[in-house]
């Protein structure tokens, strides 16, 4: 049987991959996908803790799963708005490469 630590470790690996993607990639759409990976890594550890810490009735602690439900909803809204911003940016600059978008760079 897989332990709680296994699930947390897999979740940590997924989070690290998303983090590395945000740091290393220069395409703004890939950076956005990496953000989704990080959000879902957090969801996995929330659900693992929900299953580990049973409530008084011997069922999983559903508060964490409601929290995951909210995170999924917010992530979907965030994707819609973020991609609209990327389209507007592309219209103005004809690029999705973050190094070409440096008007505010000091």
């Amino acid at each position, binding site marked *: 049987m897989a332990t709680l630590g296994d699930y947390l470790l897999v979740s940590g690996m997924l989070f690290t991959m998303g983090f590395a993607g945000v740091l290393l990639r220069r395409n703004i759409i890939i950076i956005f996908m990496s953000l989704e990976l990080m959000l879902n890594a957090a969801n996995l550890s929330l659900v693992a803790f929900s299953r580990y810490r049973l409530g008084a009735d011997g069922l999983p602690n559903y508060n964490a799963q409601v929290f995951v439900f909210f995170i999924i909803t917010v992530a979907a809204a965030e994707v*819609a708005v973020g991609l609209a911003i990327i389209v507007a940016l592309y219209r103005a600059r004809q690029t999705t490469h973050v190094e070409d978008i440096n008007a505010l760079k000091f």
Partner: protein
Amino acid sequence: MPAFLFWIFAILMLVFGAAVVLNRNPVASALSLVVSFLGLSALFMSLDAYLIGILQILVYAGAVMVLFLFIIMLLDLRAEERRKFNIVPVIGGAAVSLALFAQIYLVIDQLCGAKETFPRLSAPRTDDVRAIGLLLFDNFNLPFQIIAVLVLVATIGVIVLSKKELR
């Protein structure tokens, strides 16, 4: 769930998660993202969170992936041509990521209970849709309505942002 199924889905998720970051072609990245999320949804189901697993497939494979692919096709992005490759930021970013992972690993290693298997449920089959629905409309009613307003705001925001000229 047997341990080997856990590892199969975990490795599937991690390999395709790495493919998202490593692929040069954005379309391949978007499709890898979906496979990664399918593996993640199997892991949710192995934790008896059936509703969350199904929602994960519906929202990510159904909606988010289509949005990503739609935008990639709309912007007509091809695989990136090789730009000049700065080695210093790549090494720096990889080092910071590895440090983050080492930190996470050390925390999990010291966590009490991380070596234990999950306790047995009192019922063989969970009725999680009903339980989450009751919580959502009872204890978490206010956040639920705030989320509804958030989705409305996002819809209006997307329409305003997609207008031809921003004023």
